[in-house]
């Protein structure tokens, strides 16, 4: 049941993984370029061009969301529920955040930004990325889906963004050959550590909420909880291992990149677990 539920929502899984990670990575890169400007101009320009990596991740996530829609031609109607529909709210916030992220990326490609502008974009993107992440989580906190109607819908999303985003930023800087200031590197890793903790909390919390939501269908979810535990274990190993590779890489390009890939795969598994535990009030009761 877990894999069946998750595979039915693969487009949404990729959207909710890649957009927050890409946005947070762009925010991290802008903040570091603004608050810890590099002396090496050439590396700085290369780093600006490497914003393409998180931007592409973000845009691939956006494109994936369209594959979830049966009638994408009506997509502009999706803001019709603004203020009432959690999905409309999420889309509105994501649209603004992705637009700002895309503008930042394009400007970075075209010309070097002054430190002040980098700071401005960094703070704006950071706020937008966090808000977008929270609203993405809130879109799933629906009262008639008891397995998702908990704070863990947001906790998991925040963990994903705070872990995946800084890791992707670190990988982008490493590929560009941009030597990170020690404080900047430490801040990225600290962010990642908070994200990793939130991911672990989410996996445990989501399991508890899912198990509690089931009454007479205990046997059905019981089988799925075995799968959940297996996937959660793989997630923790990949995220923990990926974080360790990144944290101990000392700027080694290969280690940072391998660590980042492990993280992203681990975070994708976290989303598999989340979508896999879908159970509406009617089904939960059965």
């Amino acid at each position, binding site marked *: 049941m877990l894999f069946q539920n998750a595979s039915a929502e693969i487009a949404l899984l990729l959207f909710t993984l890649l957009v927050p990670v890409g946005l947070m990575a762009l925010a991290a890169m802008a903040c570091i370029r603004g608050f810890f400007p590099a002396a090496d101009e050439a590396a700085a320009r290369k780093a600006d061009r490497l914003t393409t990596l998180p931007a592409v991740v973000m845009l691939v996530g956006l494109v994936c969301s369209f594959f*979830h*829609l*049966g*009638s*994408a031609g*009506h*997509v502009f*109607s*999706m*803001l*019709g*529920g603004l203020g*009432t*529909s*959690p*999905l*409309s709210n999420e*889309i509105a916030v994501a649209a603004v955040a992705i637009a700002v992220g895309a503008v930042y990326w394009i400007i970075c490609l075209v010309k070097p930004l002054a430190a002040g502008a980098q700071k401005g974009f960094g703070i704006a993107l950071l706020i937008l990325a966090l808000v977008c992440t929270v609203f993405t989580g809130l879109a799933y906190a*629906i*009262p*008639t*889906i008891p397995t998702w109607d908990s704070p863990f819908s947001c906790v998991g999303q925040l963990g994903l963004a705070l872990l995946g985003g800084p890791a992707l930023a670190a990988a982008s800087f490493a590929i560009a050959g941009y030597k990170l200031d020690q404080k900047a590197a430490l801040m990225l890793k600290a962010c990642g550590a908070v994200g990793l903790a939130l991911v672990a909390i989410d996996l445990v919390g989501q399991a508890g909420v899912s198990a509690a939501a089931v*009454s*007479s269908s205990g046997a059905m979810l019981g089988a799925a909880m075995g799968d959940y535990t297996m996937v959660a274990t793989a997630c923790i190993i990949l995220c923990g291992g990926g974080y360790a590779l990144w944290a101990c890489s000392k700027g080694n390009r290969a280690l940072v990149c391998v660590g980042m890939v492990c993280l992203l795969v681990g975070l994708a598994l976290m989303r598999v677990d989340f979508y896999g535990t*879908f159970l*509406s*009030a*009617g*089904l*939960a*009761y*059965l």
Partner: protein
Amino acid sequence: MTKYAFAFDASRCTGCKTCNLACKDYHDLSPQVTFRRIYEYAGGGFVRNQKGALTNTVWTNYISMNCNHCDEPACMEVCPTGAMHRDDQGFISVDHDRCVGCKYCEMSCPYNVPSYDADLGQMRKCDGCSDRVAAGETPICVDACPLYALDFGTEDEMRKKHGDGVWLAPLPSPDYTKPTTIMDAAPNSRPGGSHEGALANPKEVM
């Protein structure tokens, strides 16, 4: 706006699915799309009596359920486009000029009512045969039921005839969305909240 309600008498229902088929035929639905689901809720087993003989305590009952056109519909609350709306007859229906096929309503409905029509790329659901009702007729499922288990009329008429109804297992709590369907129990029905039985036909209703 006149408020209408369906009524269902479980003591008359044999689970024949004529209502389901009449609806599918009338609305020309594909095999993947259904507007009415028939839940078979069953339980019991075999016990040995004092003389050592086996007797059965097996029981079953059926609930035929379309959209409940709830007073607090989860589908309308979550719909991002406003496609899910209450029409002039008071029924919850899909505006196909706005529906984007995101399936958010299908996820959120506790009765699993909205169906995704892959050919259309949009959601479809029971609209209470709104056109028939506007023309002074009753919904096709009500007309088709050979045992008169289904009824339809204004809410006042239905409450006078059937009372306020009861919450039956295995349906979720009416507190979630305040469904308007008035249900009468069968002798084998279990009250809502009971975990005594199990859904015997999950693949037909999920």
